[in-house]
């Protein structure tokens, strides 16, 4: 799965949890907190991403991401590792 695809999935989950972002133009430097996601929302979005990518890894492994781009990078790497 390409990073662009993962980013699109991430955007759709962000909009599911925070419908007010429907018209927002997402960029990789966006931070979930600044987009209005509280800690529970952020955990929810991470959980949805793991489910969508069929990744069976602990959520704590994704907690280091500082913005959407970093989250996509980590998810992409994990996906590669799982395949490998």
């Amino acid at each position, binding site marked *: 799965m390409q990073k662009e695809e993962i980013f699109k999935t991430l955007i759709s989950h962000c909009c599911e949890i925070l419908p007010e972002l429907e018209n927002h133009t997402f960029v990789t430097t966006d931070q979930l907190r600044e987009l209005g996601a509280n*800690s529970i929302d952020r*955990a*929810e979005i991470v959980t949805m991403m793991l489910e969508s990518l069929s990744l069976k890894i*602990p*959520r*704590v492994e994704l907690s280091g991401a500082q913005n959407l781009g970093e989250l996509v990078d980590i998810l992409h790497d994990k996906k590669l590792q799982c395949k490998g």
Partner: protein
Amino acid sequence: MTLVGIEALNCFGGTVFLDVRELAMHRKLDMVRFENLLMKEKSVALPYEDPVTFGVNAAKPILDALTAAERDRIELLITCTESGIDFGKSLSTYMHHYLGLNRNCRLFELKQACYSGTAGLQMAVGFIMSQVSPGAKALVVATDISRFMIVEGGETPDWSYAEPSAGAGAVALLVGENPTVFQIDPGANGYYGYEVMDTCRPVPDEDAGNSDLSLMSYLDCCENAYLEYQKRVQGVDYKDSFGYLSFHTPFGGMVKGAHRSMMRKMNKAKPADIDEDFTRRVEPGLVYCQRVGNIMGGTIFLSLASTIDNADLSSPKRVGCFSYGSGCCSEFYSGVITAESKAKLKKFAIERQLNERYQLSMSEYEALLRGSSAVKFGTRNVDLDFQFIPGAVAASKGKGRLFLKKIAEFHREYEWI
């Protein structure tokens, strides 16, 4: 097989409390985010209260209701805390003295952040079930305070949202073979732990941590502890096997998020069903937690007490309990509560105790944060002034409460008021 579980349970939710909405406004927190915490009040420790007074004040009513013969069968006293006052001497020694327990009793303390209470309960259950001393009882006291909250700084900006939910309180459990309050399902335990640096107390009297990491770790554990339970208990279903669910409650919103995640994963439940289920099975357990705050080791039992007091127990119900302690260790376990559980808990009037706490003003609270430095970890000598916030002691008169009077060469001396 020997029955085992909780014979008596009492919570001590402090002498004074603060309205946390007022605190949030005072700290200029984002009120929408504050509402998501689902917290209402929090108990605060006075300078002349410590984990010993909290624990004794929780346990004393239980001891008072026993006969001398029953009291003498308490052969194990475990204190469970992350608020220790000495690296060597455990809180249990002071409690043993002020509760007047038999000297033929094991005294020790254990620590694993907010999991400590569950760890204590499970050790007590093991002791009773081993039948090495038939008829013996164990007293487990989970007691914690958060003396000096870090309001600014910390690793993430969210740390300031921890202040409204950091409480102080203790829960005492009498564990034995006549478990009329909570009958343990023996062997029905899913435990799950690993090393993670989420929240901790790396120096005395201060909390530190990364709230996002802690939240993720809590959710990972909630799922994996339950999956292990499911492996060990045939035919269990997250939605149908438990009449109620009690959670370790750092704040109400956390529990709401965890429940939602579990219901979606385990039962593929839809949002409307999740909301209905939360109101019915989870909310009864949040009532006291929302009024006392996170009392760490004892929070899971504060939630269990809240469940028993607020549940419909016209028929026996199984409660699924999820305990999590940062660092981390977690466990999902279960037991049965009945109408008798409710009747037994009623004697201790936990809700009335909470209603009768003294309400702090913001300026009293701020003075208290400053005044608490008088009893920081390692204090060698100090005399405590009961007139500091005089209304607090006045509200406790006649209730047989223990307070810290002085520290003389590190030795703590307490007084009944």
